């Protein structure tokens, strides 16, 4: 681990009493969660249980209705700029990257430009440096030959691998993955999961919302089962996926043959 002495036990992200409502609909109803450095947390649960909302709150794409989120002990505030000891969503998102279900690549930019956009436009890093890093990332996700292609000319699996490279180009501490294989044809799921496995192996801290139970069981250090807007079970992959306690979770998992 690369933790500084004395901070090894401190989580990168802490969530306390998180709530999110849309009008009267309470989607997240009080979630406490810690994400530690190097940890892979899988978030599973039925549709509409609040998994996506929860993970989107972690980089403030959704504004929580109540509760607190802290990044490395600094309280996250719902404003762009950081202020005092608190951290704004602008700075937070430099450290906490995200990959989406529907890729959301920028269609007017090439693969290379998609990956370099953040570091150049936001982090103001020198172009040559960023491009060298982008080439490395493209190598890692196996798409070196696609550097000058436009997203609309790629398959779903390729798009998602580019999206992962785009997020990684920011050199984030944490990667949030929101159902990143759900929009893919079944035969393309494997290539994306393979990239995520590689990241996990490299020690990337990740929170992964997924319906791929076998994958979650395999790659996650911990698994959170979300049901009705709360964390109903939380533990190692072994305890949650292989030995579920509650009937709800057993019923949920029985649909996957995991």
């Amino acid at each position, binding site marked *: 681990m690369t933790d500084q002495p004395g901070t090894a036990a401190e989580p990168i992200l802490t969530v306390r009493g998180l709530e999110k409502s849309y009008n009267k609909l309470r989607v997240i109803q009080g979630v406490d969660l810690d994400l530690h450095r190097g940890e892979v947390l899988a978030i599973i649960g039925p549709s509409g249980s609040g998994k996506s909302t929860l993970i989107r709150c972690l*980089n403030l*794409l959704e504004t929580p209705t109540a509760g607190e989120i802290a990044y490395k002990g600094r309280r996250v505030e719902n404003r*762009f700029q950081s202020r005092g000891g608190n951290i704004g*969503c*602008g*700075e937070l*998102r*430099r450290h906490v*990257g*995200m990959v*989406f279900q*529907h890729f*959301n*690549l*920028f*269609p*007017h*930019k*090439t693969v290379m430009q998609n990956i370099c*956009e*953040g570091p150049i*436009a*936001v*982090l103001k890093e020198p172009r040559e440096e960023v491009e060298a890093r982008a080439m490395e990332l493209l190598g890692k996700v196996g798409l070196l030959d696609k550097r000058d292609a*436009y*997203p*609309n000319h790629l398959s779903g699996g390729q798009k998602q691998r580019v*999206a992962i490279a*785009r*997020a990684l180009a*920011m050199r984030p501490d944490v990667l949030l993955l929101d159902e990143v294989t759900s929009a893919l044809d079944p035969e393309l799921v494997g290539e994306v999961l393979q990239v995520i496995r590689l990241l996990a192996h490299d020690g990337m801290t990740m929170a992964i919302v997924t319906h791929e139970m076998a994958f979650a069981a395999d790659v996650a250090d911990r698994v959170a089962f979300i049901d009705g807007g709360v964390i109903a079970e939380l533990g190692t992959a072994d305890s949650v996926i292989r030995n579920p306690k509650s009937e709800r979770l057993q019923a949920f998992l029985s649909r996957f043959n995991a």
Partner: protein
Amino acid sequence: MPYKWDFSAVLQYWDLFAWGLWLTFAYTVGSIIIGVVLGLLLCFGRLSRFRVISGLARAYQEVFRCTPLLVQLMWFYYALPLLIGVTIENYVAAMLTLSLYAGSFYSEIFRGGILSIDKGQTEAAKAIAMSDRQVMWRIVIPQAFKRVLPSFINQSVIQFKNTSLISVISVGELAYMAAVVNGQTYRPLEAFTVVALLYFVVLFPMTQAADYVEHRMRVSD
């Protein structure tokens, strides 16, 4: 007896046509530039979170979209001076009205373009820590630009032809010159045919060029 075409009398006045064409160009380009700036401001006004701003922008749009340009020209030239007690020169009234009119239409075109960009684009841009302004200028607007280009060109072609209306307040653009030449030669058929051809000869290559540009910009599709 069939009509005997004779362009020679009309074409003696080629310098009037040339001057008229030049003015038509000047008013078109000027009002498009001002109209685009106005249109952008209005469009952002409409998209503003502040109700007062979006309401005002909306009111402006509706006033200029729902009254005829001809009436607006008359109003700014003949009526407004009575209201404010200051004479407005015809060329000022013409440029002002054309620009305000263009702005109201451009703003709707721009707004439609911006709203047509998928929400996921904004989210992805925010996720790499872009500020709202960067999201707008680096991600949303370049994509919206491409999408609105056909309607933008279309509106600009209309704008070019709309300048003919400022002849009613005696601005000497192309259509006005047709009337002048007709008065000199009593050859309305030739005078207005020449002017019609001039409009066409200018606009047709422009619409063709627009198609070409649009086609070129599709490389990323």
